[in-house]
């Protein structure tokens, strides 16, 4: 590992980053309101601003308190039953003992890919989701390695930051799309230059906002995965489980088609082979684990 990671530092940094991200997103939303009101109806400025602030507060609140549910719903996962997924429950229960974490809610999503993710705003409200492919193809120790990695995301508060980021990126993406569309459909015929400037700013914002947030997310995501690999091994004391799982993923995974690109950074391994770099290369992860 290139640098030493202190986990309590990481937890507080994740909490701060989540807070700042939410604040930035709130500001971006309010700014949208400002641009919209200046573009279309300067006379209704105060009305629109109040409206924008209420809406952005509501969105941020909704995104924060339901982040886990939104992530689960967006991939179409179902709650895992204790009877059918006994091993899954057993392994998670063992790992919660090893890590001292509360029991998360368990979900299964239908996909032949070997993959998993964790989400939620804090360990008390965490959810863990694995694919049916992971349950079928991985043996007990490999699955345990993957689950330990996910629980590390829970313990390090990565889930808060990553879920807030993805859920809110999703919302910004939608909001900016709506703005762009409304410009094309309703925005013609304005004569004043001032309005033109706001339209340009609006377009630039609409294009830049999701990219900026995504970039912030990409920059930190890799380090997070290495850290989660390491603390996952701290829980299981058995790096070979995780190594085995990564090797199987390397050899078997086909690109996923069903899930939205927005939630990609949440997953254990990148669901889309050639999309950006939300995850460190698998070879590199294996190499580091083999040194442990």
């Amino acid at each position: 590992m290139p640098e030493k990671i202190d986990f309590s530092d990481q937890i507080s940094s994740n909490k701060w980053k989540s807070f700042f991200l939410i604040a930035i997103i709130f500001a971006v939303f309010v700014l949208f309101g400002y641009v919209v009101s200046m573009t279309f109806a300067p006379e209704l400025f105060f009305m629109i601003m109040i409206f924008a602030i209420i809406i952005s507060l509501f969105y941020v609140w909704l995104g924060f308190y339901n982040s886990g549910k939104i992530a689960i719903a967006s991939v179409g996962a179902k709650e895992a039953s204790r009877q059918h997924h006994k091993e899954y429950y057993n392994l998670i229960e063992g790992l919660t003992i090893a890590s001292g974490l509360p029991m998360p809610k368990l979900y299964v999503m239908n996909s032949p890919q070997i993959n998993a993710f964790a989400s939620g705003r804090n360990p008390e409200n965490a959810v863990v989701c694995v694919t049916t492919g992971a349950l079928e193809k991985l043996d007990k120790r490999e699955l345990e390695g993957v689950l330990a990695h996910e629980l590390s995301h829970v313990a390090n508060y990565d889930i808060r930051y990553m879920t807030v980021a993805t859920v809110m990126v999703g919302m910004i993406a939608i909001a900016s799309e709506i703005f762009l569309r409304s410009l094309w459909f309703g925005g013609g015929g304005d004569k004043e230059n001032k309005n033109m400037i706001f339209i340009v700013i609006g377009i630039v914002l609409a294009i830049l906002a999701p990219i900026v947030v995504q970039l912030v997310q990409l920059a930190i995501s890799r380090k997070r995965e290495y850290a989660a690999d390491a603390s996952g091994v701290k829980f299981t004391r058995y790096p070979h489980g995780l190594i085995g799982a990564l090797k199987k993923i390397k050899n078997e995974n086909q690109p996923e088609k069903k899930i939205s690109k927005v939630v990609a950074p949440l997953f254990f391994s990148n669901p889309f082979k050639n999309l950006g770099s939300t995850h460190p290369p698998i070879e590199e992860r294996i190499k580091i684990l083999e040194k442990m």
Partner: protein
Amino acid sequence: MDLTWIIIGIVALVVIIFFYYYNRFSVLSNRIDGSLSQIDVQLKRRADLIPNLVESVKGYVKHEKSVITEVTNARKALMGAKGIEGKVKADGILESALGRLFAIAEAYPDLKANTTFIELQKELSTTEDRVAYARQHYNDSILEYNTLCTTLLGKFFAGIYGRVKKEYLKIAESEKKNVKVEF
């Protein structure tokens, strides 16, 4: 006027630091107690499974009573063991007795095919994993607590609040050879 505010600020800071360390010590020591009782819970569950196992094995393994008695005795020892060190040690003895029993079971295809036996075997290995996990968490918690006790400021406050370093849970000699740690 300004000086008063500076003094108030410093006093407030000192009070906050005092509170912080008090809470930190109590959080960490509660965590140690919690993980200790978790070890107990898992050992108890393990002991509770043994009578059923013995019951399911009895009918098949007629000529090798000694192993069964060994397991039963090891369970009794575990139930009666005092203190966490003693309990963990007794669990180690039970574990090796169970190992011998399962090795013998390999020679009895009927027993190996018995669903109750298979279930119990799985359940026992799950609880063994959990005992290991609980002990690991206990030691991790102690590590964190002891680090606080020995680093700067923490050491000072440990003296004030009367907190002393705690002992790690040691692994019994007999167990050392088959731990799964591979660092």
